[in-house]
């Protein structure tokens, strides 16, 4: 109790004896949300977290944060369709952050400077061993995340080199092989990982052997068997599958060059193939797809599943798309193909709400082409593990990659059938590693996703419009089969671009709450508080006015009723 003074004076700062916190009916608190980029990332990266590190000028720490989820950022920065950018809140404000370009820059910096992975636990000769089948994106990711958690890993692949689809089917114009080799090499230099090339399951090693020698088995065999394709039972005499042609081209540099070609399918393989053929001098290249092109009239789940940049480049190069269409008849003269008959169709919900393809009579059109190439997807080639999958095209594991009827076996990547991107395969590897750890340690695997923060939670008064960084591309006439088309960002651009991140749902350390509290009830600290910010609420004095929550640019401060 303050002393009553003689005369009408008071000692300085004595109001601190009066705790205005008792007035409060609502209480502010910090909420560590998931930024939309993080929520959208199939690999589980927290882009907001590593962009924040770049904002602090700590590139190496940013990369360390990035590789807690994704060991191959230089690769995904190039090949991922970056759903993070489509989800980015900044897209509503002006233009999304160029996340994939920054990721690629970080990945390249790590290669250039030889950064090593930060591991959680060292591996010892006594550590439990796990077998990983398939050294594609999911297998490499699983191996990395297992070693990171202190497991020994034996990684098997049928081919002499690791990389899977990354090596066999992604054009060099999107993924230079030096980048691929560097990132794989960094994974292979991890202690506790052994790579066994030229080991095909069922031929050089059996599944039961692997199961008896290892605590768990991860299957990342990919999808290699092209699905059967015909049009009403008719098939051209010289049928080649799209993926097969790309593999041939990557290996030998050879590709058929008819005068005109129709490619049937709407994935990256179809578009890659179209561009390769166009560059090799095929005059007319058409892509016929049941999906739509991105645009205001197209539902997000109906858009072509292609990296947006690749689609843009394909259009620049003169590839012609026929969206919302299918081939309903092959037109032959003798055994020679002279054209296809297309018809409009859409994927529409039918009885029970399940979508099916409905074609529209009266929209048929003939397209004269010399060749038709199906590129409608691939299924798992089950040789060597028939007992795991039976006659199905794909595995059907749970979200952690666990197979209900085969405990100890985990699956990820394209073999699941519901993934379809490198990033998703990398995410599968990480999830499976967590599930394998839980399986070995006989615990429950914990998944605690954070709630995603929406644009309406931000206070954008505190941000300024700023154009997205410009990244150069090689002009169409100068494009060849080997030179990467999209160019690098420079360091200054990376810093500028990361500075555009609005830190959705996480503390920006902007001082707004500290500055605007009329009651001096926000305390700034030099240390990072347990909730990731630099600010504490002094609940002894906070009156609960909610100014801090309104003026927080990031939605990081919320109010709830005082109990």
């Amino acid at each position, binding site marked *: 109790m*303050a002393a009553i003074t003689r005369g009408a004076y*008071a000692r*300085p700062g004595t109001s601190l004896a*009066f705790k205005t916190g008792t007035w409060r009916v609502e209480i502010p608190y910090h909420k560590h949300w998931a930024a939309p980029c993080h929520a959208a990332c199939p690999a589980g990266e927290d882009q907001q977290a590593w962009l924040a590190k770049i904002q602090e000028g700590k590139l190496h720490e940013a990369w360390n944060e990035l590789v807690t989820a994704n060991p191959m950022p230089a690769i995904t920065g190039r090949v991922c369709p970056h759903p993070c950018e489509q989800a980015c809140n900044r897209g509503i404000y002006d233009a999304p952050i160029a996340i994939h370009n920054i990721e690629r820059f970080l990945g390249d910096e790590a290669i250039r400077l030889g950064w090593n992975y930060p591991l959680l636990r060292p591996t010892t000769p006594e550590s439990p061993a796990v077998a990983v089948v398939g050294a594609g994106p999911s297998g490499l990711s699983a191996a990395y995340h297992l070693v990171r958690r202190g497991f020994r890993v034996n990684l098997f692949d049928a081919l002499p080199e690791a990389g899977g689809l990354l090596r066999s089917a992604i054009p060099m114009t999107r993924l230079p092989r030096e980048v691929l080799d560097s990132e794989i090499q960094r994974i292979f230099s991890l202690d506790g990982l052994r790579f066994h090339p030229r080991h095909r399951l069922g031929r050089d090693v059996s599944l039961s052997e692997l199961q008896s020698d290892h605590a768990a088995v991860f299957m990342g065999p990919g999808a290699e068997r092209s699905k059967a394709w015909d049009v009403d039972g008719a098939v051209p005499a010289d049928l080649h599958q799209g993926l097969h042609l790309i593999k041939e081209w990557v290996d030998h540099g050879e590709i058929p060059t008819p005068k005109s070609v129709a490619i049937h399918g709407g994935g990256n393989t179809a578009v890659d193939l179209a561009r390769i053929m166009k560059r090799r001098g095929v005059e007319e290249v058409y892509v016929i797809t049941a999906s739509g092109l991105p645009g205001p009239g197209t539902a997000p789940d109906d858009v072509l599943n292609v990296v947006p940049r690749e689609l843009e480049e394909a259009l620049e190069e003169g590839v012609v798309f026929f969206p919302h269409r299918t081939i309903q008849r092959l037109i032959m003269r003798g055994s020679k193909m002279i054209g296809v008959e297309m018809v409009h169709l859409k994927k529409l919900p039918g009885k029970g709400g399940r979508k099916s393809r409905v074609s529209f009579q009266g929209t048929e059109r003939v397209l004269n082409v010399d060749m038709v190439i199906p590129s409608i997807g691939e299924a798992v080639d089950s040789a060597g593990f028939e007992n795991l999958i039976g006659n199905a095209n794909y595995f059907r594991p749970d979200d952690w990659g666990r197979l209900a009827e085969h405990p100890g076996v985990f699956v990820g990547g394209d073999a699941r059938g519901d993934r379809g991107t490198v990033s998703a395969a990398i995410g599968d590897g990480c999830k499976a590693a967590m599930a394998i750890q839980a399986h070995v340690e006989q615990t429950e695997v914990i998944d605690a996703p954070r709630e995603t923060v929406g644009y309406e939670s931000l206070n954008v008064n505190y941000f300024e419009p700023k154009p997205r960084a410009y990244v150069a591309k090689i002009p169409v006439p100068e494009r060849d089969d080997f030179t990467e088309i999209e160019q690098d960002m420079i360091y200054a651009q990376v810093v500028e671009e990361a500075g555009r991140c609005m830190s959705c749902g996480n503390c920006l350390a902007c001082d707004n709450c500290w500055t605007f509290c*009329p009651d*001096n009830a926000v*305390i700034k600290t030099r240390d990072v508080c347990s909730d990731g910010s630099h600010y504490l609420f002094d609940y002894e004095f906070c009156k609960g006015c909610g100014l801090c929550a309104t003026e927080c640019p990031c939605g990081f401060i919320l109010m709830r009723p005082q109990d």
Partner: protein
Amino acid sequence: MAPNASKIERLKELRDKHGRTDGSVLPDPADPPKDLRQAQPRFRGLEAGHRACQGCGEALAARLVTEAAGPDVMISNATGCLEVFTTPWPQSAWRVPWIHSLFENAAAVASGMEAALKAQGKSTKVLAFGGDGGTFDIGFQALSGMLEREHNVLYVCFDNEAYMNTGIQRSGSTPHAARTTTSPPGKARMGKRHLKKDLLSIISAHHIPYGASTSVAYPADIRRKVRRAMEIQGPTFLLVHSPCPLGWGHDGALTIEIARLAVQSGLFPLVEMERGEVTDVMPIRKPVPVANYLKAQQRFRHLFAPDDPRALQEREHLQALADYNIEIYGLYSEEADPLDTDGADTVRRGGLAN
């Protein structure tokens, strides 16, 4: 002694007195300070525990002004909310020498304090604080005298546009058409009949070296203007727009939001005047309709009465007043300025961007 050297010496004296360091030696991370409040990297001239309402704009403005003015000041405070809520005897929220005498004489008391300090050869700056009642109306002649006699005092008026302390009576600062308890809207009038007094022009007509208006929505602007005024030997004046959640009828959480709309609409222009001339303004990037500002407050609710033709007329009147401000001060500029109404509060990781 050069004035700067004496300032440095005085600061050292104050630091020694309060056991503070000059910040050149960082605290040992192994031995963090026990009381984080004591370790705040800013001057806490106005401490917590004061009795202002939730979301009080005036408490925030006074805190920001005192913070920027620094420790070597003395304050003379007119009667009003600020005086009442900061000093419920025997406690005080102030950590600088502070005196309250009457409603009308804050400027006169400050004049005497300044003269006494001058006689003693001390450089401590005298501040005078008052609300709009104590400045626009009751204390106006004392203020005019202080300016005319060229006392070295910074007078800060916390403008919440009515007598809030006594129960929301209209003042010379209350905007046109606002409801107060003495200007209730009804059959005869739509709130206050008269206009807001253009005090800054009157003050400026005293030919003082510096007078400016600023707003709680732009703390960086407050800081800059306080520091500018502190450097000047002679009478200076600041008008700080500070919303009153109780008197204006809005949620305490929206204080900044509303203050910002007042500036962005042009109704409360942020200008700087030197020797009677406008020398700088905060440009408006994209003028916000005045209605956005009005509809957020209960004191203008009658201006949105659906079947009263006077409502729209008065709304248009206020819009015309804002347009007039924009026109005479040249507030609107085609090009974005990093320090305009949209840019001045931009933040980045680690604080303000500009």
